[in-house]
């Protein structure tokens, strides 16, 4: 019984972790059609910058969280302007640039801080016990932040002018610009938000677990899975996709021992993709 309760708790929290990280990627991919493979590396960078700000300037982790989001968001602006904007639609070149960015970020961080085990200070302390369930406040906070961010982003995409412009661009880029939407400015904003979200996720998980120069590789796979299952033009889909993957990742290790669990999870994703390649909630994109 305790195992079932623990699995359900893990499911919720894992899902929220994946959703927070994937939101940033989904912004660029689902809304603007830019597959930012460097997202994992940016998530990692966010964690390290958060820690650097805390150690260098001496602020607490909440202030660092916001500052890091801004700093990495600015990096996202730079990326969009110089790395993505010139090559929109050219999948090949974007992939090459992303690989270059990944290599530069990972090698740089590895040289500076690779040999140490580093972690951000926890965002909350203590353990909450409710009946048979037992969860740390830290994970609850991560879940809460994830839920709040998801809510804000969904509101942003559906209710604000900017969000609607992004939806228009994701449906028909040319048509949108003909309607007078400044595609470049919207892309820049999306990139800022996307990278800021990645940075926040990096700090949260860097506090709960630990930082590593290559932690982004693992997250990138999860993020891609969520983005694909959700589909183009859809942010709400990330939520469902996150739940699916969170369920797989929390239940499969319990049921199946060892490395086979990963293989089955990816197998299920492949099957889902074959059933409905354009994702469950979005629309088809010509690329």
């Amino acid at each position, binding site marked *: 019984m305790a195992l079932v309760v623990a699995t359900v708790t893990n499911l919720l929290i894992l899902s929220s972790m994946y959703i927070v990280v994937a939101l940033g990627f989904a912004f660029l991919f689902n809304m603007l059609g830019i*597959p930012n493979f460097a997202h994992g590396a940016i998530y990692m960078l966010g964690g390290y910058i958060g820690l650097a700000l805390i150690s260098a300037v001496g602020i607490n982790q909440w202030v660092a969280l916001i500052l890091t989001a801004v700093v990495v968001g600015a990096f996202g602006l730079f990326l969009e302007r110089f790395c993505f904007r010139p*090559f929109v639609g050219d*999948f*090949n*070149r974007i*992939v*090459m*640039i992303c*690989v*270059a*960015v990944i*290599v*530069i970020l*990972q*090698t740089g961080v*590895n*040289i500076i801080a690779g040999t140490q085990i580093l972690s951000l200070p926890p965002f909350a302390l203590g353990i909450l016990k409710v009946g048979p369930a037992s969860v740390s406040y830290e994970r609850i906070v991560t879940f809460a932040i994830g839920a709040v961010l998801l809510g804000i982003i969904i509101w942003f995409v559906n209710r604000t002018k900017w969000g609607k412009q992004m939806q228009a661009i994701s449906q028909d880029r040319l048509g949108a610009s003909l309607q007078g939407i400044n595609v470049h400015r919207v892309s820049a904003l999306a990139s800022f938000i996307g990278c800021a979200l990645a940075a926040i996720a990096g700090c949260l998980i860097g506090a709960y677990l630990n930082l590593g120069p290559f932690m982004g*590789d693992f997250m990138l*796979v999860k993020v*891609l*899975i969520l983005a*694909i299952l959700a589909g183009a033009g859809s942010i709400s889909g990330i939520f469902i996709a996150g739940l699916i993957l969170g369920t797989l990742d929390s239940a499969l290790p319990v049921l199946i021992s*060892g*490395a*086979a669990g*990963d*293989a089955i999870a*990816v*197998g299920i*994703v*492949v099957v889902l*993709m*074959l059933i409905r*390649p*354009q994702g469950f909630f979005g629309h*088809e*994109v*010509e*690329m």
Partner: protein
Amino acid sequence: MSDNQLSTYIPSEPATARSRLIKPAILAGLVVIIALLPLLLGSPYLLHILILTLIYIIAAVSLRTITISGQFPLAHGAFMGIGAYLAGMASKHLGWSPWLTIPLAALVTMGIGMLIGYPFARLRALYYALGSLFFGIGVVYIIQAGGTWTGGYSGLTGIHPMFGGSKTAYYYFFLGLAIVSLLALYRFEFSRIGTNLKAIAQSHLVASSVGINEGWFRVLAVGVGCFFAGLAGAGYAHYNMVLSPASFNFMATLWLVMYVLIGGIDSFAGPIVGTIILILIPEFARGLKEYSPFLSAVLLLIVVYLMPKGLVSLPSLVRAWYSERRKGKKIAHVSGN
């Protein structure tokens, strides 16, 4: 394409009897050098690097062959891995000879590729890419979950080698294999089938209106590409005698893709150039120690920003730049400076 074609016409040198001899002479010289490389180099380590280069050339060119059908597979490393592990397991557990395992592994890999390619063929470009990416990741996980059959995460050891200890024999074997594979892929691309594939890539509507069965051709392209990927992988298994799933993971696929893109995806020679450059340059960067990955990254950036068509376009870019300068001088001369 040169931007100056409309503005200036500079006639090329007329072909004289002497210039007609130069080309074949250079080619012949090349052939001699490549054939005698083991003796010229005298370093087994460099020979090892060259052998790896030949193996990856086969894989990279076969990857490009799939792309001419408009699909962009992100699982090629995994197919190399399938070929490698099939050959390796057959050699280790069943004791089969490499001359048997290598072709068989290539054939089975082709079969798996076509089997997977069939349902994936419906997917449009980007989705095909990502779907194959997940498939590739899944393959690596399956290998890691393989227990004592595949050796799991720590890898498969004890594969039988092909030739004693001498690298020279391996070099000639892989050189022969590469030449045969490249010829086959070249003929495939410029055959009727290849032309059909390019038609499909450009427009599925037009292609099907002419009666080309899109799905079947796409699956065929994947099959051919996977055959050679499996071949390269199986050869690698018998050369290295040790396999690790990490050699065939997403990063490995991504680097194969880099070899193709850096060289130039539009040209048959592109992947060859890209593979050679991207394998040899890091070897020289060893002196940079922990900074050596930066060199590869810088190379990628240079190609992305300055050479959109890849490194193969370098000569024509240089020529275009040169003719720009000559045109500039001519105009300056004419306007009486």
